[in-house]
């Protein structure tokens, strides 16, 4: 009975206890890091087809590594994350247009990568009709990463770090273009920004209240801006000419894709979320501050044949806005800044 196997000696007992603690710690960590895509209560139904590519923890982690992978560029210097920086809500803060490979300049402001699951047309001109196919464009663009996609996939194949990650994400070590794109989609689809002050107020969380000015600003935005900046995504995901220029010779916008004269100068409506982190604004980064943006709508709108009807009502260009109204709108726009999103460690380069 003395040395019965059912009884532990004191050190052995302590060891078991310690091991159990370790295991439970581990478990907690796993639970904490488990990645799940969730639809915020105030958002519409997503457009991405998750049934063919559900978000998994391993797929997300692979996608994140690929997002920050400079090998996807010709000279291994530029990653997706170079121009889509997490703490700038995945834009290239401070850059009107981004500098890509060899310091080449593009013609458009890097748009934020957020709430991608709710869009089915991407880029300022909507040229991409599928999130999965999106990364091929910047990878192949000569002023961005300048690498043939097939070669990019080959470089990832030759990198010994990746086969185990593909196995974890997709079951086998096989590295293919579609798998690489699916992993990137999983990462991008997790970049959901829905925890700004506004969201909490809208969902009735934590007793969050908007101030009187913020509330006034909210109503002004609903009244004067929501024809384009609609839903809680604050974009209609459609294309409009907002009167930035009167001619569009450098960049015809949507017409570059449709080749239709009625689409000249139209660009996809950007969301109003996270503006604190994403200046400068507009497709060409031409406005540095929100005040400049509102001044543009109030008195800077330029006429051209495709100018949006909402910006030329009753023969008057622009949207009438008083100084007080502008202040209140900006107060409201600041409630759309999602600090939790831009500081989320899961989304940053590891």
């Amino acid at each position, binding site marked *: 009975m003395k040395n019965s196997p059912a009884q532990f000696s004191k050190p052995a007992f302590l060891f078991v206890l310690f091991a159990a603690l370790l295991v439970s710690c581990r478990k907690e960590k796993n639970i904490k890091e488990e990645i799940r895509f969730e639809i915020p209560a105030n958002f519409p139904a997503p457009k991405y087809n998750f049934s063919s*590519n559900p978000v998994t923890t391993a797929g997300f982690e692979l996608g994140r590594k690929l997002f920050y992978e400079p090998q996807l560029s010709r000279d291994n210097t530029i990653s997706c994350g170079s121009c889509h920086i997490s703490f700038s809500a995945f834009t290239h803060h401070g850059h009107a247009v981004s500098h890509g490979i060899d310091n080449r300049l593009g013609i458009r402001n890097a748009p934020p990568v957020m709430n991608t699951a709710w869009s089915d047309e991407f880029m300022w001109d909507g*040229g991409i009709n599928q999130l999965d*196919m999106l990364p*091929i464009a910047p990878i192949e663009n000569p002023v961005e990463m300048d690498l043939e996609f097939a070669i990019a996939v080959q470089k990832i194949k030759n990198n010994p770090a990746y086969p185990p990650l593909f196995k974890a994400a997709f079951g086998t070590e096989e590295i293919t273009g579609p798998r690489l*794109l699916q992993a990137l989609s999983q990462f991008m689809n997790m970049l959901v920004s829905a925890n700004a002050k506004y969201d909490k107020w809208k969902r009735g969380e934590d007793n969050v209240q908007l101030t009187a000015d913020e509330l006034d600003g909210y109503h002004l935005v609903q009244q004067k801006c929501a024809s384009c900046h609609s839903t809680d995504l604050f974009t209609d995901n459609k294309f409009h000419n907002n009167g930035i220029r009167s001619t569009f010779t450098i960049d015809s916008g949507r017409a*570059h894709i449709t080749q239709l004269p009625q689409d000249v100068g139209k660009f996809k409506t950007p969301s109003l979320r996270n503006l604190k982190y994403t200046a400068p604004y507009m497709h060409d980064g031409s406005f540095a501050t929100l005040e400049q943006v509102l001044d543009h709508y109030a008195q800077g709108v330029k006429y051209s044949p495709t100018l949006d009807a909402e910006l030329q009502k009753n023969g008057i260009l622009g949207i009438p806005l008083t100084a007080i109204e502008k202040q209140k709108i900006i107060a409201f726009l600041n409630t759309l800044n999602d600090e939790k999103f831009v500081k989320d460690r899961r989304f940053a380069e590891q």
Partner: protein
Amino acid sequence: MKNTKSIFAVFMALSALFSVSSCKKDKLKGKGTVKLTFDSRAGNANFAYGTEYTNAAGEKLTFTKLQYYVSNFVLIKEDGSEYVVPQELTYRLIDEGVAGSEVITLPDIPAGEYTKVKFIVGVDSLRSTMDVSKRTGDLDPAGKAADMYWSWNSGYIFFKIEGTSPASTRTGNVFMYHIGGYGGYSTPTANNIRTITLTSPNAIEIGEGRAPEVHIYADILESLKTPTTISIANTAVVHMPMAATTFANNYADMFKIDHVHNE
């Protein structure tokens, strides 16, 4: 007597008819395969890279690249009934630089005598907007479709010819015709998908234990000829959907079934 004779004749005719039809039924039963070969031609001559041809505009030209998609095959019988080949099996990139890419074997086709072959030059619009899990095989943009995909305007290049011509004013005297455009996602845009229906000179007999071969001629020079004669001097480079429509309209009479081998 006369009556008996005619009754006999009718009987003979009926039995002959019966035996023929029963014979046919015996001959073509179950399911079979058909092999389609897309043979590139240049007018009456064989098509080859590096050979100099003359186009309808009278310009000399030499090809360095010929790639095009065919898909969505349908086999049609004399009575008009159709067999639609399962779509997943039909996306094929024919590449002059890849031996064997011009031969397409379609399996499990119900027995019968087929007289027409219908297909799309290009990739249908629905597939052109599907998620990447549906872009395997010849549609993989990191694989066979690497040179046949527009990344900036997501969609496939349906038909691509490149080469050189003294008539070209471009650097290196090159010409490049990239024909794509599936019709647009939310805004209707140039749609350069074309459906081709070819009538076979003799019936394609498909059935168990048979493997008929359909020999299709694709006259590449014809893609520059009718109804619109393309002049390299005027247009040496096309890589946007709208300008490509003229070329897509020229596909109509570039294909024909030259002959069918039935066993």
